[in-house]
C-alpha cells in the first residue's frame, strides 16, 4: 500500500494546438483528501479526465491505483468513482433507477441489495422514487455521490462537486467525504472555494495548465512568502484607492468593513500602509495571510510566465 493512489508525471494535453494541461506532475497518497485548485479554465477538469481514462494524454504518463492511465483504462474505471462537474445521470430516471443502472454496469450482485444499501447510506431512501430531473442541486449532488460510491471505489475523483449547492448540503457533503477518507478512500476534489481547500489534507494549485504550488495549506501559504495587514475603521474605500499599486503593496481586498493589504516584504508593506491608515483614521493589525491572497498572487505570476 506504499504506492500512491495517483502518480502522474509530465501530463500534457493539447486541444487544437492550445496547451490546456502543461507537464503536470502530481502525487496523491492513499487515504488522502487532495484539493485541486485553480481558476476557471486552468485545466483541472482536463487533468481529472486524463486520470480516469476519459481523455488520452498527449504527453506524460501516470498510474492511478497502480494502473497505467493509457493502457489500463478499463481497470481504472472499475476502481475509480468519477463525479462530473455537470450533473450527468439520467434526469428521466428516478433515483433508484439510476442507481440500479450503475449497479448493473459495475456488475454488482445482487443489484437490489446494492441499491438498497446505497440509498440508505446516503439518506436517499425516502426520495428513491423521484425523477432525478426534479431534484434540487443538493439532492442531485447527493445522488451523483451515491452513484460514484456505490461500487466501493478506491479513489474518488470529484470535479467541482459543490457548485450550486447550499452551505448545509456542502457541509454534509464534506462530512461524508471525510468519513470515507477515514475508511481509506482516496479523494481528489477540484474546487475554487477557499474554505473547501482548507478542508483538504493537501492541495495542488494549477493555473494556465501548470502546477504552481502544492503541499498542505500551511505549506502553500508559507511558501508564498506574503504578509498581510488589516485596516479597520476609517475610510477604507479611499484607503483602498490610495494603496492600490503603491510601492510594496501587492493586493488590496475588501472584507466587509475591513481592508486586507498584502505585500511581499513586511517592512516595505508597513511603510506603505502606515501613512495611508493614519490619514484615513484606520487601525492597522497584522493578520494571517489567507489562502485566497496566495492564490491571487499565484494566478498573477502564472499569467506572467505563461
Amino acid at each position, binding site marked *: 500500500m506504499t504506492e500512491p493512489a495517483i502518480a502522474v508525471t509530465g501530463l500534457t494535453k493539447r486541444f487544437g494546438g492550445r496547451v490546456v494541461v502543461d507537464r503536470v506532475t502530481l502525487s496523491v497518497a492513499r487515504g488522502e483528501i487532495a484539493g485541486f485548485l485553480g481558476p476557471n479554465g486552468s485545466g483541472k477538469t482536463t487533468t481529472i479526465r486524463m486520470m480516469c481514462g*476519459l*481523455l*488520452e494524454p498527449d504527453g506524460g504518463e501516470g498510474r492511478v491505483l497502480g494502473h497505467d492511465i493509457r493502457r489500463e*483504462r478499463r481497470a481504472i474505471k472499475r476502481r475509480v468513482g*468519477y463525479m*462530473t462537474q455537470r450533473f*450527468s*445521470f439520467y*434526469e428521466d430516471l428516478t433515483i433508484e433507477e439510476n442507481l440500479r443502472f450503475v449497479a448493473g454496469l*459495475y456488475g454488482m450482485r445482487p443489484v437490489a441489495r446494492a441499491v438498497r444499501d446505497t440509498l440508505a447510506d446516503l439518506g436517499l431512501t425516502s426520495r428513491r422514487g423521484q425523477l432525478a430531473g426534479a431534484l434540487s442541486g443538493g439532492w442531485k449532488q447527493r445522488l451523483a455521490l451515491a452513484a460514484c460510491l456505490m461500487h466501493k471505489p478506491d479513489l474518488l475523483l470529484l470535479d467541482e462537486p459543490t457548485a450550486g449547492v447550499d452551505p448545509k448540503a456542502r457541509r454534509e457533503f464534506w462530512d461524508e467525504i471525510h468519513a470515507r477518507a477515514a475508511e481509506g478512500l482516496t479523494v481528489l476534489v477540484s474546487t475554487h472555494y477557499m474554505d473547501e481547500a482548507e478542508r483538504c489534507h493537501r492541495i495542488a494549485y494549477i493555473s494556465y495548465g501548470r502546477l504552481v504550488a502544492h503541499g498542505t495549506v500551511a505549506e502553500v501559504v508559507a511558501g508564498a512568502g506574503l504578509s498581510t495587514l488589516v485596516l479597520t475603521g476609517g475610510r477604507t474605500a479611499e484607503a483602498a484607492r490610495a494603496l492600490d499599486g503603491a510601492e510594496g503593496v501587492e493586493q488590496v481586498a475588501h472584507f466587509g468593513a475591513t481592508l486586507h493589504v498584502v505585500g511581499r516584504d513586511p517592512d516595505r508593506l508597513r511603510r506603505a500602509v502606515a501613512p495611508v491608515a493614519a490619514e484615513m483614521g484606520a487601525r492597522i493589525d497584522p493578520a494571517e495571510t489567507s489562502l485566497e491572497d496566495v492564490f491571487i498572487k499565484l494566478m498573477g505570476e502564472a499569467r506572467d510566465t505563461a
Partner: protein
Amino acid sequence: MIGRVLSFGRLMALLAKETIQMRRDRLTFGMMLGIPLVQLMLFGFAINTDPKELPAALVAPTQDRFTRAMVSALELTGYYRFVAPDATAAEAERMIARGDVSFVVTIPSDFGRRVMRGESPSILIDADATDPSVASGAISTLGTVAGQALSREAGVAAPAPGLSVVVHRRYNPEGVTQYNIVPALLGVILQLTMVMMTAMALTRETERGTMENLLSMPATPLEVMLGKIVPYLGVGAVQVVVVLAASRLVFGVPFVGSLTLILAGVFVFVMALVILGYLISTVARTQMQAMQITFFFFLPSLMLSGFMFPYRGMPGWAQALGEIFPLTHFLRLIRAVMLKGAGLATVSGSFLVLGLFVLVLALAALTRFRKTLD
C-alpha cells in the same frame, strides 16, 4: 404602437442570432445547400415512370433467322434489353423470380418451321407483373412490332402469317398495385422509424451530458451498442406484425412464399437499419444533425430502391447507387418471397448482401464510437 408587438431592433437582434447559429452548424448549413441540388440531379435523371431497356431473358432452343428477327424487333422497341440471350427455361425462371429480369421471352423450337409452313406461330412472354407499371408499356407495343418484324423477315416468300403473342402477367395477373406497394411499405416504414430512433441514441447522451458519465463507467463499446439497438428490435417486431397482418387482412396481399423466410429477411433488414442508425448517432453531434442525416439518407433510398419507381427502369448508374441501400435488397427479397414464392436458394443473394450490411455497419459503428471524450 407597433413597437410594442414588433420592434425592428428586437427582430434584427433575433435574426442576427439565428443566422450566426445557423452558420456555426456547418453540417446543417451544408445540408441546406447540398440536399436540394444533389437530390434534384439524382432524381431528375434517375427517375423514369415509363421504364425502358428492361432486362429480359431469351429462351430460344433454335436460334434461326426468325428468332433473331424477333429479338432485334423487340430490342428496337426500346423496352427490352436481352441480358441473358441464351437461357434455359429453368435459368430464366430463377432470374425472373429473383427480379434479375423483368421479362422472359420464349420462342418455341418449331417457331421457324411454322412460319415457313405458313402456320400461325406463337411466342410466349412472361412478364414480372409484381409492379404493374413495369410491364404495361413493354407489353402494349408488343403485338404490332413483332408482327411487322416477322412479315419483313418472311418477306415475299410467304404471306405474313398471323403471329400470336401470349403474355403471362406473372405473380400479379390482375395488376393490383397494392400487391407491389404494401410489402414494400413494410420496408419503408421500418426504415423510417428504425433509423431515426436509433440515430438519436448516442447524440441524446452527448446532448444531455450523460455521455461523460457513461464513458467513465466500465461498459464496452459493444455493450453500449447492443444496449442501444436491442430495444428497437422489439419495436421493429411490433411494426412487422402490424404491417404484415394489415397486408393480409386489409389489402389481401397474397403470402405465396414461406412466412419463416419473410421473417428472417425482415430480421436481417431491421438489424442493418438499427445499426445504421447507431452509426449515424456516432457521427452526429446533435439530435438535429442526426435527423438531417437520416433524411439525407432516407429520400434517395426511397427513390432509388425500387419502391417508388421501377428499379430496372433507372439508368445503370442510378441502379448502381441504389445497391448501397439496404432497402433495395430488402424489397427484392420481400417481393420475391411474398409475391413470387421464391425459396431460400433464389433470395440467398439478398440475404447475403443484407448480412454484409449488418457486418460492415457494425464494424464502422464500433470503430467510430469514441471511447474517450477526445
